């Protein structure tokens, strides 16, 4: 019932171009991190290629509606708040044959904003507004934030909403797919399993999740905090189609996202939270959030980054 997406797959995807997007995403996040003495860096390192594949190739989105500037916080959604604008507009207007993209682990917001910036959906100056009082560029994205359509800082809530959207779209006979970007930590929440069961039971083949399986969470490595493996087996046993790929191999990612299956699809992208910047590993197991302990440390990270990017 749900049609195939846009033409894609390894054959047509411009891998080198997508790799440039991934590098650009990381660059923007690094710049922020250096300017603000810290930030959600490991998420950019693990998920750079995932966002590049999604925004650079896979997602079939319409143009941004309205201005590409983020704008001021328009108030919370409420009856009578006519000023309200959803951050979904940066993913284009919903249309029957277009894809929808839902962004789940809201603390990855900076990675999303960087990706939107890289593909020209978000104004180049927007990153400067990150976490600035009164801006929509919230640290933990809410549904007024660019590219964000649901409020999912309480994790594992986007997939259910995506299932509802996918179901509604199927009821209306729409061919577009409904995508969700997820973190692996979300597979510890029971809600995720309720939704996978729901999605497979209702044969929501339009629903496609992509997981940044970076093996880490706030307290450290997931194997030490709360194991979710074998994740592929778990997802498969819940009736979904699980595909495992190297999350830093864009061709694999693009291929996996194009999987032809009648089941809800879950792409498990195995990633490294220090990818392209091995120096970060010295902080293991605490990679979730980076805060420099001194100006000297920051400077040395800056130097390391400069050297690496010079090289690459």
């Amino acid at each position: 019932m749900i049609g195939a997406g846009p033409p894609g797959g390894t054959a047509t995807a411009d891998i080198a171009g997508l790799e440039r997007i991934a590098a650009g995403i990381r660059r923007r996040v690094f710049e922020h991190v250096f300017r603000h003495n810290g930030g959600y860096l490991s998420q950019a390192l693990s998920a750079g290629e995932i966002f590049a594949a999604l925004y650079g190739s896979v997602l079939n989105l319409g143009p941004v509606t309205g201005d590409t500037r983020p704008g001021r916080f328009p108030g919370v959604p409420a009856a009578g708040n006519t000023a309200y604008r959803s951050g979904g507009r940066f993913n284009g207007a919903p249309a029957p044959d277009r894809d929808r993209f839902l962004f789940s682990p809201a603390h990855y917001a900076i990675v999303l904003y960087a990706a939107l910036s890289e593909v020209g959906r978000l104004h180049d100056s927007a990153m400067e507004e990150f976490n600035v009082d009164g801006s929509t560029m919230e640290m933990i994205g809410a549904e007024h934030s660019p590219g964000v359509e649901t409020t999912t800082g309480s994790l594992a809530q986007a997939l259910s909403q995506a299932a509802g959207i996918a179901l509604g779209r199927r009821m209306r006979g729409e061919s577009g797919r409904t995508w969700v970007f997820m973190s692996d930590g979300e597979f510890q929440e029971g809600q995720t399993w309720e939704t996978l069961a729901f999605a497979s039971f209702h044969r929501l083949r339009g629903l496609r999740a992509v997981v940044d399986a970076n093996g880490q969470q706030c307290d450290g490595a997931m194997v030490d905090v709360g194991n979710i493996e074998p994740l592929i087996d778990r997802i498969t046993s819940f009736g979904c189609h699980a595909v495992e790929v190297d999350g830093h191999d864009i061709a694999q990612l693009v291929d996996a996202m194009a999987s032809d299956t009648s089941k809800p699809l879950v792409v498990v992208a195995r990633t490294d939270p220090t990818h392209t910047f091995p120096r970060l590993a010295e902080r293991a197991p605490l990679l979730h959030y980076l805060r420099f302990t001194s100006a000297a440390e920051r400077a040395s990270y800056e130097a390391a980054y400069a050297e690496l990017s010079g090289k690459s």
Partner: protein
Amino acid sequence: MEIVSRPHVDSFIKWSATRPEVLVLSADLTNSCEVGQWRDTYPDRFVTAAMAEQNMLGVAGGLAREGFVPFIHTFAVFIYRRAYDQLAMSVAYPNLKVRLVGFLPGIVTPGGVTHQAVEDVAMMRLTPNMTVVETGDATEVESVLGAIEHVDGPVYVRMLRGEIPRLFPASEPMVLRRSRLLSEGDDVTIITAGITTEEALRATRVLHSAGVGVTHVHVSTHKPFGDSILAEAIERPGHGVITMENHVITGGLGSAVAEYAAENGIGGRLVRLGLRDTYAHGASRPYLMKEYGLDAGALVSATERLVGQPLGIAESDLEAARLDVVHSIAKAEAL
């Protein structure tokens, strides 16, 4: 008094006929929430969510974003207790047009503490963007769908099922934010909602005969709270106000009246009848209403406290005042 059997069944089916955007979501309590026939009538608009309420609330949010109007039907506790975070973040925050139809309010069920929604009104009142209504008779069950139709945001409906008395004429449907003035008098004001109104009607008759002037107001909109009838009743000078709610006394009707009074500097005394910081247990409704002081007798005692003197009303006077038709005496067993 007329007793109407399962008024929601037909009313909802009929109402949905011309509203294709209306869906039903059920978490394995379809027949218990009187939507089995609805499902058979509109199979394509019925979504089985199985016993997974957190996901169901999220799915409802997603469907609402697509322009559907999902009516969740399950026991109230499984909406506001089991899935509160999803209710708050996936439905209430985005102000989506989801209807949360919650069954088994307060102590109407012998299903015990896990099934008795004794804090739902409080939780829904404190939830931003939420509109909160409660049905108190067959007329309100039949007319609640129309009353809330145009609310642009989530609505929680505290719903009755089964055999329900008709206290208000069918020609006087529920209207959002409009209370009902059931009697007038200058000594005490009694404010009730849901099933406590029927009980209060028994007491007010007897109180009137005992010479106590009672203003009795029935509330069906808990939030937004307050209309001119309520305001006048609360402000009425007299010995004070009594609220009787099928609910804990913190955060529900009694608190709403207290907030209104305090914000407006009205100094009368307020007596809040209801569950006092306690869960209940499983037993029949009349048994529990008596145990927890939610019956006509409790109302008479509270009135005596306010007027400061015994009124000489006996249990038998209240028995005699029982309304013409009483509920099926068979004790509910199935959930």
